[in-house]
C-alpha cells in the first residue's frame, strides 16, 4: 500500500517535471539553454485550460498548450539565435514574461471549472499487484510521457534530423560545412523543446489538478532545467530525474500523513535535497556529456 501510494505519487508529482526535462533536453541538445522553461510550462497550463474550457476538448487544449509554449520558445530563439542575446538573461526574462502574461490573461479563468482529462486504467496492466494501479491507472498525458521517452530517443539518435540537431549542439561549423543550416536547426530544437515543456504545464492544469491559478507551476520548470544535467542530456534518463523529484515530493507528503516526528520544514525540503544529492553524485561525469556549443555559452557567460 505504502509502495503503491509512493509510486503513484511519484508519477503524479513528477510527470509535469518530466515533460520539462524532455523539452529542455531537446533545447540543450542544439546548444541553447532556455531558463524560460518555467514560462513555457505556465503558458502551456493557461493555454490548455482556457482552450479546454471553451471547446470542451482536452485534446485541443493540449494542442493549444504546445502552440503557446512554442511561441514563447520562438521568442527566446529569435533573441538568442537571431540576435545573439545573452542566453541566461533572456531565458530569465522569458520566464518572468510567461508568468506575468499568464497571471494577467488568466484572471477570469481562476474561478471557472473544466472537466479535463481523467484517469484511464489500462486493462490487464492496471491489475498487476503493487505497481499496476500506480503505473497504469493514470491520465493520458502520463502515458504519453512514457511513450515520449523512446520516441525522443529515436528522433535524436536514430534519424538524420536528430543527428543534425545533435551536431548543431556539438559544433555548428561542421553542420554548416556539411551543407545544413545550423540556425534553422537551432530554431527547430528550441521551439520543439518549448512545445514539449508546455505539455507539462497542460498536464498540471487540465489533467492533474483541473485548476488554473497564477504561477501554478511553482518552480517545476526551473527544477526541470537543473534535472536535465542530472539526466545527462539524454531522454532515456529523464524519467530518473523526474521521478527522484516527484518521489521525494510524494514521500514527504506520505510521511507527513503518517505523522512522523520530523519537522515539516525539513520534509518540505526533501524534493530539493534529493535533487541536490543526485546532482552531486551525477555532476562530475556529466560535464563531458554537455553539448560542446552549450559549454561555450556557459563559459562566455561566466567570463563576461
Amino acid at each position, binding site marked *: 500500500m505504502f509502495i503503491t501510494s509512493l509510486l503513484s505519487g511519484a508519477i503524479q508529482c513528477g510527470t509535469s517535471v518530466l515533460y520539462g526535462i524532455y523539452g529542455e533536453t531537446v533545447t540543450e541538445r542544439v546548444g541553447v539553454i532556455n531558463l524560460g522553461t518555467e514560462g513555457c510550462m505556465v503558458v502551456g497550463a493557461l493555454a490548455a485550460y482556457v482552450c479546454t474550457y471553451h471547446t470542451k476538448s482536452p485534446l485541443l487544449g493540449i494542442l493549444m498548450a504546445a502552440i503557446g509554449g512554442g511561441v514563447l520558445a520562438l521568442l527566446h530563439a529569435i533573441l538568442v539565435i537571431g540576435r545573439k542575446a545573452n542566453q541566461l538573461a533572456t531565458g530569465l526574462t522569458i520566464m518572468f514574461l510567461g508568468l506575468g502574461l499568464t*497571471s494577467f490573461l488568466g484572471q477570469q479563468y481562476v474561478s471557472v*471549472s473544466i472537466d479535463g482529462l481523467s484517469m484511464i486504467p489500462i486493462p490487464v496492466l492496471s491489475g498487476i499487484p503493487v505497481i499496476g494501479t500506480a503505473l497504469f491507472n493514470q491520465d493520458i498525458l502520463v502515458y504519453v510521457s512514457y511513450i515520449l521517452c523512446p520516441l525522443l530517443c529515436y528522433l535524436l539518435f536514430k534519424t538524420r534530423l536528430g543527428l543534425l540537431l545533435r551536431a548543431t549542439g556539438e559544433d555548428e561549423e561542421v553542420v554548416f560545412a556539411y551543407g545544413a543550416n545550423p540556425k534553422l536547426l537551432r530554431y527547430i530544437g528550441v521551439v520543439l523543446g518549448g512545445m514539449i515543456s508546455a505539455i507539462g504545464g497542460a498536464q498540471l492544469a487540465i489533467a492533474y489538478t483541473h485548476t488554473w*491559478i497564477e504561477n501554478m507551476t511553482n518552480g517545476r520548470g526551473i527544477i526541470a532545467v537543473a534535472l536535465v544535467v542530472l539526466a545527462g542530456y539524454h531522454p532515456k534518463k529523464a524519467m530518473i530525474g523526474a521521478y527522484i523529484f516527484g518521489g521525494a515530493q510524494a514521500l514527504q507528503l506520505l510521511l507527513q500523513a503518517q505523522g512522523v516526528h520530523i519537522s515539516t520544514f525539513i520534509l518540505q525540503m526533501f524534493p530539493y535535497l534529493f535533487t541536490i544529492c543526485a546532482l552531486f553524485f551525477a555532476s562530475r561525469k556529466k560535464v563531458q556529456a554537455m553539448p560542446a556549443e552549450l559549454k561555450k555559452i556557459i563559459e562566455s557567460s561566466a567570463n563576461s
Partner: protein
Amino acid sequence: MKKKIWKKLMSVVLCGAMVFSMAGCGNTGGTNSSSEADSSAKTSSEKTDSKKTTVGFIFVGAKDDYGYNQAAYNASVAVEKHFGDQIQVLRQENVPETEEASRALEQMIQKGATVLFPTSYGHLEPAMDVAKKYPDVTFFHQGGLKTMDNLGTYFGTIWQSFYLCGIAAGANTKSNKLGFVASFPIPQVLANINAFELGAKSVNPDATTSVIFTGSWSDPALQTSSANTLIDKGIDVIAQHQDSTKTIVELCEQKGVYCVGDHADASELAPNTWLTGAVWHWDDLFIDMVQTAIDGKFDGSKYDGKYRGGLKEGVVDIAPFGKSVSEDTQKKIEEEKDKMINDDYNPFSDEIKDQKGNIVCKKGQTLTIDEIESMDYLVDGVIGSTK
C-alpha cells in the same frame, strides 16, 4: 559597426521586456480605478476632488479563487457600494509579500490614498515600512500581530468556525479519520486545525485529524497530491486552510469524499460532498473601519491596535450546510454556535492535551486570544508534525 548597433538595440529591447514582465508580475489586474461605470471625464474630475477619501486594497492572490482573497475582495466591493461617491477605491491583486507590496502601497499613496488595506499576513512588514514614512496615512492590516500609531490590525477568530466545521466532520465520518490540508505551521493555521479536531472529538471521541502542510498558500498540484495521499490513507473528510480552495473541493466531489471549505462558500463546486466551511464576512467590518478613518477617529478607536471579531460580531461564520449533514447535526452545530455568540463559550477551555500529552490548558482555564494566536502545538488527536 552594425553589430554594435544591434547589441545596443538588443539591450534596450531586453530591458524593455524585463520591465514589461516585471510590471506584468506585479501589476496583474492593474490598479483598477473604482467607478468603472462612470464616464472617464467624470472620473478625472473626481480625482481632483480633495474631499473624496481614496481607499486602497492590495491582495496577495487573484480575486476569484474561492478563498481568502475573494473574501477580502468582495468586502472591498461592499465598501465601494456603501460609500458610493464619497470615496474612490483602488485595488491591486497578486501583490507578493515582498518589497513589491511596499511599492504598490506607495503608488497608491501617490494617487491620493489615505486609507490602505494590506490584506495578507505577509504584507505586514512592507506595510510597516511604508507606514513609518507616511504617518498621516491610516493602515488596516489583515491578520498581523504587530501594530503602530497609524497601523492597526484586524482579524477574525475563524477558529470558532473551524470548531463548528469539526462537529460536522466528526458526525459524518465513517472511518473516524479526518484530513486537513494546511499551508504553513503558523499559529493561526495551527489554531484552526486544533479547533477542528476539538470540534470533531466533541461529537466523536475516536476522530483523528491527519494534517499535511504544503509549504505554500496556493500550489494546486501539491494540494491535489496531499488530498490524494490523505484519501489513500482511508480518510473520508478533508478540510483545508489554503488561499484557493477550488482544487481540493472539486477533487473531493470527484472522489466521493466529504469536504469542508475555507474562506468562502464553495458548495456549488461539490453538491454531493460539501459539508460546510469556515467563511469570512468582512463587509460590515470593512465599512465600519473605513467610516472610522474618514471621520478621523482612528486614534484610540477599537481598530487602533489589535481588533479581533468573531461569530458574535458577525466577522466569521459557517457556510450553508451540504445535503449530507443530518438535521440532528445541524441542530447541534447551531446550538454550539449560539453558545459561542451568547455565552462567550470558547472551545479552547478545560483540559486540553497536546500531541505529547502535555497539558496546554488546565481544567477550568480558558485560553486568551493572545494564547490562541501564539499556538505552536497540535492537540492530542491530530496526526502531524509542526516543527
